[in-house]
């Protein structure tokens, strides 16, 4: 068996709505090993995005334990958590969330800027990525000038540029047609083959089938 990447130990998230306490995530137990490709499924509002955000350390569990690469995330300071996710996690969004004012090239380059990587090295890395995704010819275009599939390609390239161990993708094909959707899934499968761990949230059975394991959520619980 491969190394354990992360583990959730009866992790919960509750929010206060007025006087009510609502559990968005309820006692989640989950182990993820390096090299896995997990599909999170469940109806809208079941807590998929919340779980991904918590795993991605953009949000916190309010209860239970979360260990990432042996480090106890649940008892970490904000600063250390952000160091951790910057280093190991890449995010892909349903709405792509590219920066409109930046070109394709600059969008992909952005994470590197925040890692203080030298300009020459950045150039090489971005060039590699453009090459690999076959979008060299589009590098000077703005997001608005691309199709949805192309935008998501750029989004994935941006997530990969920092060489993350884990990719969190929240309905990455939710805004795409089935042809584009299949292409993206092929790409994920290929990345997974190369060793990147992937957790994706999806509504689509066919997309889920690309993964090596399916986890079903309902009302914040694994079923």
């Amino acid at each position: 068996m491969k190394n354990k990447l992360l583990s959730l130990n009866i992790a919960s998230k509750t929010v206060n709505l007025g006087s009510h306490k609502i559990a968005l995530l309820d006692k989640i137990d989950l182990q993820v090993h390096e090299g896995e490709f997990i599909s999170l499924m469940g109806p809208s509002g079941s807590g998929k995005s919340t779980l991904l955000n918590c795993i991605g350390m953009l949000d916190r569990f309010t209860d239970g334990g979360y260990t990432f690469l042996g480090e106890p995330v649940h008892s970490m300071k904000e600063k250390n958590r952000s160091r951790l996710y910057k280093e190991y996690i890449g995010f892909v969004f349903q709405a792509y969330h590219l920066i409109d004012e930046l070109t394709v090239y600059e969008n992909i380059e952005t994470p590197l800027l925040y890692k203080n990587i030298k300009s020459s090295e950045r150039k090489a890395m971005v060039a590699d990525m453009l090459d690999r995704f076959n979008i060299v010819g589009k590098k000077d275009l703005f997001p608005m000038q691309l199709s949805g599939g192309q935008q998501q390609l750029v989004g994935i390239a941006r997530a990969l540029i920092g060489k993350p161990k884990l990719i969190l993708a929240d309905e990455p094909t939710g805004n795409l047609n089935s042809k584009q959707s299949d292409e993206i899934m092929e790409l994920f499968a290929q990345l997974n083959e190369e060793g990147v761990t992937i957790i994706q949230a999806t509504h689509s059975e066919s997309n889920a089938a690309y993964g090596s394991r399916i986890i079903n959520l309902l009302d914040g619980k694994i079923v």
Partner: protein
Amino acid sequence: MIKNYIKIAWRSLKTNRLFSAVNILGLALGLATTLLLFLFILHERSFDSMYAKKDRIYRVLLHTTEEGIETWAQVPSALSPQLTEHIPSAQQSGRLLKNDYGGNAFIKAGDNILTESKLFWIDPSILDMFDVNILSGMGAKALTKPNTILLSKSTAKRYFGSENPLGKTLTVDNRNTFEVKGIFEDFSEHSSLQFNAVVPIMMRQEAKHPSWGNASFETFVMLNSDTGNLNDIDQKLQNIIDSNVEKEQQWYTFSLQPLEQIHLQSSAYTDSYLENYGDISQIKNLTILGILILIIACINYMNLITARSQKKAKDVGVNKTLGASRTQLILRFYVETGLITAIAMILGGLFTILILPSFNNIVNRNLEASSLFSLQIFVFLGFIWLVTTLISGSYPALYLSRFSPKDALKPTSNKGIMASFIRKGLVVVQFSASVVLIVSVLVVRQQLEFVQNKNLGFNPEQVIAISTTAVPDVATNHALVNAFKKLPNVSLISRAQGYPTVSVSLNSIYKPNSDVGMSVNTNLAEHNIVDILQLKLLAGQRLPSHKQDGDSLVEVLINKTALDFLGYTPEEAIGKKVEANLGNNSYIYGVVDDFNFASLHKPVGAYAFHNTVTKGNYNYLLVRFKNQNLATTVSEFERTFKSIATTSAFQYAFVDKNVEHLYQKEQQMAKVSLLFSILAIIVACLGLFALAAYMAEQRQKEIGVRKVFGASVPKIVQLLSIDFMKLVLISFAISFPLALYIMNQWLQDFAYRVTISWKVFLITGCLVLLITFITVSYQAIKAAIANPINSLRTE
């Protein structure tokens, strides 16, 4: 329909609280300043408008024709009677002379000894021209007889309390006795003329034997209502001069100044007995400032609207698809703007009432809050409301309403770029205006500091001038001098006709063996004057300490300017005869270095101390004292003075205080520009604050993405602030040269002035950048520390 629009506007106000608050507050501040200035200008313009014959009354001005042309508001006593005689359209004319050529009068009314600052010797016709309202007793007619006096109502009360003043007697300056013949209504606060007491001018020697030399009489003339009556009036005035004064003796010409111009357009004229002059240039400056601040406030409004224009544009699109016409949309936007400006107006009115006391203090006026509730003000407010609504509402109404529904609903098109361009331009304009204001505050302050610290060539500190005009006789005068000499606190003492900051006699000094003349101030003084003022003696000696009675020899100390005019070296000059209307036997005895005897607005003129007793009076006792404590010094001197001159009031001035007083106008300007700069900056910052909030909101998604991909909080703050900083830097490029130009113009008013240093701009630049950064970074930090998942959620 309109009701419906108002309802929509009101809801939109409530949902966008921050924007609305900033808009309304900014506009209200802008309106408050405009309103204040309007009140002030109304007040200033209303001067002398209460006189029924105001359109026909003129004051005679005198223009000197010698070197350094000046305009005086006083003319020789012989002119007035000639006016009605030789100018057919002149119906009436009259002179007025303030007691002792501008000094205070000392009144003894029963047991009361008082100082009267507004006693005038006048021709009776003055009362007729100005329709002075007689409350009891006689009017102008009383003044045709000697030893009569008319008092204003409040003055009579001051002198005699509740007793009936009519028939009472009083003495003036311990010389003349007058009987109170009539009581007139107090002069309006808005009148340039301010009489407390008037006595017949015909009692004065100068009026009985009028001359064409001594120009000390303020003279008014009333023309008939014929419109052509000003035709060749200058020629007629010149004819009068020609037929009375020999060509060589003519050192002046005359002109007429309409009464309505007296209050605002006289600040450059020397020698007038009238007080509380306004200043037209100040009014112009204030008007410009007011408009500037109103523009800044309007810009805020437009800025915030353009900031919301994406949303508004969508609104337009939706409404157009629902069938709204362009006119309806225009109307809707104007209604919304009108509502906001109306609320701002009310708030602005409240601000005005709050600021009014400090404003009064600064401009030295007494404007009342109650005058806000006048028709004029309401018309003005209505006008301003319309203008601000039209200006501020023009962008949304005319620009946004033009979109076709298709364009407006499209998420991106050039409308966003256009709006952001306009927005940036407006911010640049705002900041440029603020920078100009700050620079002006700094330069005015620097100049004032310079003026106050400049070496004046004499030392005004520790010198007191005690008025002795009321001391009845020579013996008392001598007793006073002797008593003061003995005081341990007194180090030096000299009697003098005047002292720096106070006008003395004006004569002409002539080049040797030539009739090329120059104006010279002559001051009758004594030996110690040089040391009391701590003047620098360049050659020769102080005035002799003793002078034999009847000695016709006149010793004169001239200053460097006079010396240079005469063309001597200091040593050469000693012993030379000097022609300065000081008698035939006058010789240069010493030369002193130049000193600034008047304000630093003017270069130093020629000045001479002399000891010709017949050419002036000792009006003051100048004392250099030792004690640093001014209060005890004053009370000690007062006791000494009262013990000898028992019947005179003690009247004094510290010379350094007088010097300070010369720059009252500038000090006022400094305060005004400070007040307005603060207001302008507050308004501009309010706008910036809301704009930064908007920008942060606009870029929320981007900020979230950047954070997810590793941006730290400082990086985000930098990202958001840098754009504003760039705008501020651009505004520097525009405003620095502009401010430099404007302030250099202002400095032209001073003969002695600072050069504007680059440090002023450095300080202003840092200050504005700092303020901008603080304003913007609050919003930027708020945006940067927000959790990105909130902005990235896709529902």
